[in-house]
Each structure stands twice: as structure tokens, then as C-alpha cells.
């Protein structure tokens, strides 16, 4: 399922930063990892990914470096910074609140919490 524009809007940066939190990655690797983990639900286009990555880099949430070690061609890897990690935690928190609120509406009933 291709949810590139509708499903990913507003969450793409959170998903990408979550991948980078685990390890440094290059662009194609992120797309493949995202596709595999979401069972092909999230199919991010390269043309969406790179402007997003460069925007994150400009904000200082990720940095990048060239690395040719062990690869057929040099690749540009991205790394989540400490500031990016902080931002990611905030986004996670906001997402969890949003998801709980949606679940409550979908499940119906009074909220005694």
C-alpha cells in the first residue's frame, strides 16, 4: 500500500529519526528499512526523503558524513544528533497522546480518566 503522501504526512520525520536513533544509515537503506518494518505500508519516495533529510540537517537534528568503508561506492550516512534525540522524544510523546485520543474516540464510551 502506498501511503506516501497521506499516511506519512507529518510523521515522516519522526519515523526517519526513529530509524537513525538505532544506527547511522544512508538514504536508500532508510527507505528499505521503513518499507520492511511497516510491512510495505510506508513506501517513502526518494524525492520525499532527501528534502526531509536535508531539512532535518539544516535544523541540526541530524548530521551527515561520507563513508566508503566496505561499500562498492561511497555513501552519505546520516546520524541523529543529541538535539535530534530530544526532538524525537517530544514527537513520540505527542504521537502517543494523539494515538490514545483517537483510540478513545474509536472505542467510544465515557472517559473516567
Amino acid at each position, binding site marked *: 500500500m502506498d501511503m506516501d503522501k497521506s499516511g506519512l504526512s507529518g510523521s515522516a520525520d519522526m519515523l526517519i529519526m526513529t530509524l537513525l536513533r538505532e544506527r547511522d544509515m544512508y538514504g*536508500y537503506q532508510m527507505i528499505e528499512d521503513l518499507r520492511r518494518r511497516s510491512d510495505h505500508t510506508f513506501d517513502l*519516495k*526518494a*524525492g*520525499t526523503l*532527501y528534502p526531509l533529510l*536535508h531539512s532535518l540537517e539544516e535544523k541540526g537534528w541530524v548530521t551527515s558524513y561520507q*563513508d566508503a568503508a566496505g561499500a562498492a561506492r561511497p555513501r*552519505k550516512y546520516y546520524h541523529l544528533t543529541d538535539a535530534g534525540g530530544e526532538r524525537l522524544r517530544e514527537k513520540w510523546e505527542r504521537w502517543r497522546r494523539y494515538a490514545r485520543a483517537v483510540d478513545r474516540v474509536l472505542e467510544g464510551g465515557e472517559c473516567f480518566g
Partner: protein
Amino acid sequence: MRWKRARAGLGGELYAHLLDQRDACVAEGMDEEAAIAESLRQMGDPVDVGTQLDRVHRPKPQWGALALVGLLLLIGCALSVSLRRVAAADPMLSAPAYYEQRWIIYALVGSAVLLLAYFWDYTSLGRRPLVFFGGGTAALCWLWTHSLLFNGARYQAKYYILFAPVLMALLLYGLRSKKWLGFVACLGASAAFVLAALCIPSVACALLVGMTCVLLTLVALWRGWLGLSQKQAAGLTCGWGAAALALFLLIGARCGDYFRHRIYAVLHPETDPLGRGYLPTVIRALLRGAKWTGEGDLGEVARALGQSTSAVETLLPEIPSDFMLTWVIYRFGLLAGLALVGLLTALIVWMFRKALRQQGMLGCLLSLSAACVLGIQLVLYTAQNLGLSLFGALSLPLLSYGRYTVVNLALIGLALSVFREERLPGQNGLSVRRAGNAEKALIFWRDGDLVIGLSRLRKQ
């Protein structure tokens, strides 16, 4: 994307992605042509992609800094005019008009040089850094040897030597990852620049060049740009500091009486108020007599010197170039002096912060060299104008008279060029992957594979 220079950096990354996608499609059984077509389809709509990238990658105009530089130049010009009018009003004072005229010329020429540097592609220096270093050093040597000799000093060489830190930045960049060879070569180059400054002779220039070269090399060491580990960097830092201190003490000991008398004159100017202690005595008396706003009182000076005087302009030599700050404090008040120093400090601190945040090695070192040269000039000039003239001063950047204005504006233009292009993609391609990263660990991830460095186990 409208920014043409940004396209080259991005193109490489997108091309590599296309190749990865194509290889994956071929691995799934597609033929070459179908794989390429699918890879292009996977990239998305090219117009949409270009528009999004254009939003992110644009030059970052430095309007604030340019406005501040313009304001400082206007203030400098106004001060020069004001000084000439004050001197012209008193028949006892000589007021050569050429100070004002030449100040305006230097400001105009310097502004043109700033704009040239600002719009110039500084990354072109990174394509052949060692060639530019060699050419720049050769030009510096030629200019140094052809500087006019006046009273035993090559005054013009003081302007040219201020570009030595920029050359040092190019050398560091050219020798990145060369480890010990790079470090020793940079050490040798910085020692040569310091010696050239001492032979002008100018201790202030030597101090400025030496401190800036040390700072640039330390930044390169700590960020792993020379390919040495953090422990090695720490050891080199301590060793270098000890060597510099030993050298300074050796020079001081060999120079004997000169330094001792100079230090004594600063610490106890009252012991020789009309001789070696004259300038510190007069300056400190002027500062004691200064008010928060408006003109100060010359009574303190009369008491300190034991003689009366009618105008501050007769007390201090070369006010437009060497004692502009003291004159401003006396004539317009302490607040005016603080405001000038505050504006300059704000500009220089901003430059330092921006320089240290640069990801690319070349941009970081070039802008840092400019910030250091300006910062040390400000510190030395302020110290002299507060009566602490141990090393002499060069200029009050953008405010005092002299060809330093052209040099300082050129350096500011270079730094602003770096800041303007900090969004240029591929800048991080100019930075080297740091030594001591994850892959130096025993166990790490690489391209989805868990790697255990058995060879490191053996070494351990």
C-alpha cells in the same frame, strides 16, 4: 533548484540512490532498462522533488551582520570627522585632513573587497588547498620583503601577516587525515609565520598569528580532522602549550631589559610619568576623569603629570589609529566607549559561534581564522586604550584609521561567505569522518550487518 552550486552536491547523493535502487531491481530479476525505469519512477515527480529541495537549499543572506558592519563603518567615519573638527577648532592642534579622506577611501575599498569575498565561492579554495597555501605564502614572503622599512620596522608587513591564519586554515585542510605528518607540518608553518611577525618587528602580530594558528590546529585536532585520536590530541595540546610557554620565556629572557622595563612601565607608570610610563599614566588619568556621558575632566591628567594641558588631542599621539577608544571615552563618555566595544564584541562573538557550528572543515577553519584575527585585535587595542599597553595594538576593527580596515573587511567578507553558504549540500563531504567512531569499537553495525572486529581482539 535555483541555487546552481547546490545542485552538484545533491546530484551525487541522488545518483548513488538511483544506483542502489537499480541494483535492487536487477537483483529481483528485472533487466537493466526496466530497473532504471523503475528507479526513476521511485524517485517521484522531478518537478515536485526540485521544488522541495529548492525550499531547503538556498543561500542564507547575512543581512544582520552586513548591517552591523555598515553601522560600525559609519560610526568610524563619523568619529574621524568629529576628531578632525575638534582639532581644527583649536589653533594649537594640527589636524591633517588626510586622516579623514584616507579613512573614507579605506572604508570604500574595504567594502568593495567585503562584497567581493561575500559573493565569491570560498569552496574553490578547497579544490587545491595546498596550491593556494603555497601561492599565498609566496605572495606573503614577497610582500614582506618588499615592505618599506621605516624606523627599522616593516609597517606594511603588519597588514599582510594578518592573512597568515587564513593560509594556516588552508594548510590544515590540505593535510587533513595526514596524522603526524600533518601536525608537524602545521607546527612548522605556524612557527614560521610567528617568526616572520617577530622580524617585522611586531610582538602584537606575532601574538595574534601564533594564538590563531594554535587555536585552528587545536580545533582540527579535537574534531579529529587530522586523523589523530582524542588521547593523542590531548597529549599534543599539552605538549604544544608547554613548548609555546618555554619559547616565550626563552625569548623574554634573551630580550632582557626591554621586556622587564615594558612590564614595569605598565605595572608602575607613576615611577616615570614623563618617560616610559607616560602613555599608561595619561590614559589612566583620562579614564579616571571620564564621565558616563559627555566630555571628561583634564584635572586628573594635570595632577598625574604635574603640568596643565588644554586639550586631550595634544596628550596622545596618533589618536585616529592608536588611541581612538580612549579619545571616545574622554570626549563622549564611558557609555559611548562601552557601546563601541559592545558592538564589536557582539559581532565577533557571533562570528565565533557561527564558525564553530560549521560542519564542514574548510568553512569552519576559514571563518574561525577571521573571527580570531578580529577578536585578538579588539583585545589588544582595548588593553592599550585602558593603559595596559604590554604588546602594543594593531587596530580597533572597522573604527580606527588605517589599512587594517581593508584587511578586516576582507576577512569579514570571507567569514560571511562561509555563513551564507552553510546550506550548500555536500559541505559535509568536505568533512572527514572522525577518528574514534563506532567502527573503532569491537562490535558495530555496517549496512545492516553486525560486525565483530576479531582483528581488534587479536591486537588487544
